[in-house]
């Protein structure tokens, strides 16, 4: 099936108007030896056939929304209110381009302005951009932002060992050609507090996570104070789980300079890892060096309020090689979804969702902590994710949960040994409002029944 409207007659009229005999005449400048290759793609399918195939492929996956799931580690299973998909399914939103012509893009522009406002409110910051690709690329942009704030004269960036390992990887990928140094995560058994001692007059930025990748709430106020005590100018960037901010004091209140994170929990499906949403906020002081699109309010020639893309001189289409970043899009539709999510839940709803996460996670931790062979590591407070020392390998326990336990399928937690070798046989368990009491109790029951012979 091809989405082409022309009749043969119209095609002939068009060719005649152009002054060529056939369509092939329009491709004479393509080297002849390379023209019209045989691509060997699969036989084309009708809409009915492709949907049958895709339904089969979709059914071949285990759906985490309909399976009890305790997996988080950067992507979380939350309830997505029906209004979210209704709004982002509107063609007026999803088939529009970046709002370059503001007069005919006020819908997108105003929604982004509202998104920026809500991200500021949530994080306790003054300025937010229109979003990045995801939490990991937002982390990399935070590094580049700080580098630009110091006009590339400070070269050291300290990343907490408890920052999401994928964020740490992406920071290194992005900066491999830049003349800067990424340190702090050499010893993965260390905490954020341990690495702040490395802050000095050449340090552009310290990057923390709250709650950290291990689910813990490190003492953010103290950490920021320690950075300031070592060097007043060093920026502090903090990655956050946005749902936790329904309950917790935001990093902005502790004096963070940059707050960013993975916005997927704000109304986006798990989608096997994407598209997600990198939210990003900072202070007025540093807004001129941020990357990405920014929407501002202004007036039209008649004095009416309207919205435009602004501060564009930072961007690649004007600065080219001197731009603050090469990014020239945002996650428009995902930012819209998050805006609808935050609007629909609102002040009270988001607080309640956060509280549900907190209480359910603590209930689960209490149950699991009582099981023979399992210990919950509780040296720090946590939000909705916690570490469990297990009596067997996490891979085997997860296999047992998924395939063996009384024909229930349970998707277990994240195997921390993959990225933190000293936490071999430790599972990171995430509990959200989607986990019913029954699911939590079934998990505890299943863990208890992990066979003795498979225990270490």
């Amino acid at each position, binding site marked *: 099936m091809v989405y082409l409207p022309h009749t043969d007659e119209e095609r002939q009229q068009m060719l005649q108007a152009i002054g060529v005999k056939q369509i092939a005449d329009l491709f004479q400048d393509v080297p002849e030896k390379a023209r019209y290759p045989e691509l060997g793609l699969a036989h084309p399918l009708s809409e009915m056939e492709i949907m049958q195939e895709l339904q089969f492929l979709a059914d071949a996956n285990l759906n985490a929304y309909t399976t009890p799931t305790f997996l988080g580690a950067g992507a979380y299973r939350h309830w997505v209110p029906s209004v979210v998909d209704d709004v982002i399914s509107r063609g007026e939103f999803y088939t529009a381009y970046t709002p370059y012509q503001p007069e005919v893009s006020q819908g997108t522009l105003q929604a982004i302005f509202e998104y920026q406002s809500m991200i500021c409110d949530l994080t306790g910051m003054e300025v937010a951009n229109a979003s990045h690709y995801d939490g990991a690329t937002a982390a990399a942009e935070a590094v580049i932002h700080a580098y630009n704030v110091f006009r590339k004269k400070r070269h050291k960036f300290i990343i907490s060992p408890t920052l999401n390992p994928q964020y740490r990887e992406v920071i290194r990928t992005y900066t491999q050609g830049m003349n800067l140094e990424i340190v702090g995560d050499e010893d993965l058994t260390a905490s954020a507090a341990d690495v702040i001692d490395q802050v000095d007059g050449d340090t552009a930025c310290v990057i923390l996570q709250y709650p950290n990748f291990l689910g813990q709430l490190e003492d953010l106020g103290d950490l920021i104070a320690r950075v300031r005590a070592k060097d007043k100018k060093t920026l502090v960037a903090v990655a956050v789980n946005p749902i936790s901010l329904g309950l917790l004091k935001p990093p902005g209140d502790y004096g963070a300079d940059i707050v960013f994170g993975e916005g997927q929990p704000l109304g986006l499906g798990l989608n096997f890892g994407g598209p997600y949403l990198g939210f990003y906020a900072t202070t007025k002081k540093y807004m*001129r060096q941020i990357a990405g699109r920014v929407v501002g309010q202004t007036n039209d020639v008649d004095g009416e309020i309207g919205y435009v893309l602004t501060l564009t001189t930072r961007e690649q289409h004007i600065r080219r090689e001197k731009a603050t970043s090469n990014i020239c899009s945002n996650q428009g539709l995902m930012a819209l979804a998050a805006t609808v999510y935050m609007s629909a839940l609102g002040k009270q709803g988001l607080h309640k969702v956060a509280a549900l996460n907190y209480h359910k996670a603590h209930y689960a931790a209490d149950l699991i902590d009582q099981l023979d062979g399992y210990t919950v590591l509780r040296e720090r407070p946590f939000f909705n994710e916690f570490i469990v020392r297990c009596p067997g390998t996490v891979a085997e326990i997860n296999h047992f949960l998924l395939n063996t336990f009384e024909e229930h399928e349970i998707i277990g937690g994240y195997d921390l040994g993959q990225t933190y070798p000293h936490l071999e046989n430790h599972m990171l368990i995430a509990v959200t409002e989607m986990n019913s009491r029954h699911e939590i109790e079934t998990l505890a029951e299943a863990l208890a029944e992990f066979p003795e012979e498979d225990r270490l």
Partner: protein
Amino acid sequence: MAIDMQARYLKSHEWARQEEDEIIVGISDHAQEQLGDIVYVELPEVGDEVAQGEAFGSVESVKAASDIYAPVSGVVTAVNEELEDAPELVNQDPYGKGWMIKIEPSDPEEWDALLTPEAYEKVVEEEA
């Protein structure tokens, strides 16, 4: 196009004027005309060192951004903080209230290499 006859110039359209022991720096009337409505001026901090011919900041309109180059080397002794809230001063009064920084020069001979008002006028004419 107005030209300040007391000033010296760079081909890149900055002006410099001697005031006591300091050199005061801004961009020319021609430059502000070319840029259009200026929306932001990025300036260094007092105490920063600048080198002749190197960018020390930038000036931005809605659709363009241009680096501003130092006419002489030295240490920045003052920046025009009013431009932070009123960048339009550069449009309104480029040789006066729209000044950008003051430099304590480190090499007095650099001054002599700058363009005279007459020479600068020729540069602008040639560009057109």
